[in-house]
């Protein structure tokens, strides 16, 4: 009886090991970035916050950075915060990317993949538009150039107009 019991325990452990977080959806409260060990962003959340998940190996992420820089320049004074969360495993890749693009917004490295696992992004890149209560209001899976830019502008303006 001992061996099957051991087998059951091992398999139960495997089953528990594969438990994954549910995907963050529109209307959900976004996980807090502030308390994380890798979070070096001084003021993470504004009236409206865009949290973007990116990686140095992701081509559309490179295209999205100038767009977020433009958004930040246009709306930061009105209360927009942009936080770009890297999922790079190698900190050197992350550092090279940041040095190359020198983003004018907050960037941080989710080295242990804790945050991205919690959020469970559907693709790379994915950005979440949060309101002042940190609720997810819009999600953009992937970056599709001007189409995404225009949609983000509209959403940011809408959320900024909310009191």
């Amino acid at each position, binding site marked *: *009886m001992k*061996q*099957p019991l051991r*087998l*059951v325990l091992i*398999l*139960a452990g*495997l*089953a528990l090991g*594969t438990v994954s977080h549910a995907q963050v959806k529109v209307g959900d409260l976004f996980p807090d970035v502030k308390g994380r060990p890798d979070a070096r962003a001084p003021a993470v959340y504004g009236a409206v916050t865009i949290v973007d*998940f990116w*990686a140095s*190996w*992701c*081509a*559309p*992420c490179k295209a999205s950075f100038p767009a977020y820089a433009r958004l930040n320049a246009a709306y930061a004074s009105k209360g927009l915060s942009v936080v770009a969360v890297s*999922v*790079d*495993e190698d900190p050197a890749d992350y550092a090279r990317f940041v040095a190359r693009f020198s983003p004018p917004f907050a960037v941080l490295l989710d080295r242990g*993949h804790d945050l*991205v*696992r919690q959020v469970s*992004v*559907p*693709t*790379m*890149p*994915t950005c979440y538009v949060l309101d002042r209560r940190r609720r997810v209001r819009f999600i953009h899976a*992937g*970056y*599709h150039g001007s189409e995404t830019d225009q949609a983000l502008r509209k959403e940011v303006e809408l959320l900024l107009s909310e009191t």
Partner: protein
Amino acid sequence: MKSKIPIAVAAFALTLCMLCTGCSTAKAVRVHPWDRGLLADSVMDPNRDPLGSAMMEHVTSSREAASGGRGVGGAGCGCN
């Protein structure tokens, strides 16, 4: 009869755990989007040598009188 019960229990537990861990679905082999850094590497691109591929394509079309149907675009990060 005594020895058959533990085997039945083990078989039941195995089936249950396989169902719980998602072995019966495509989820079991899905690589998370944030874990695809190595797949995005250029060495994973089947067409990383476009000139060589074009030459091979030319040879194939000359010899086989058929062309196309080769690979997919880009490497394997599945971004966007």
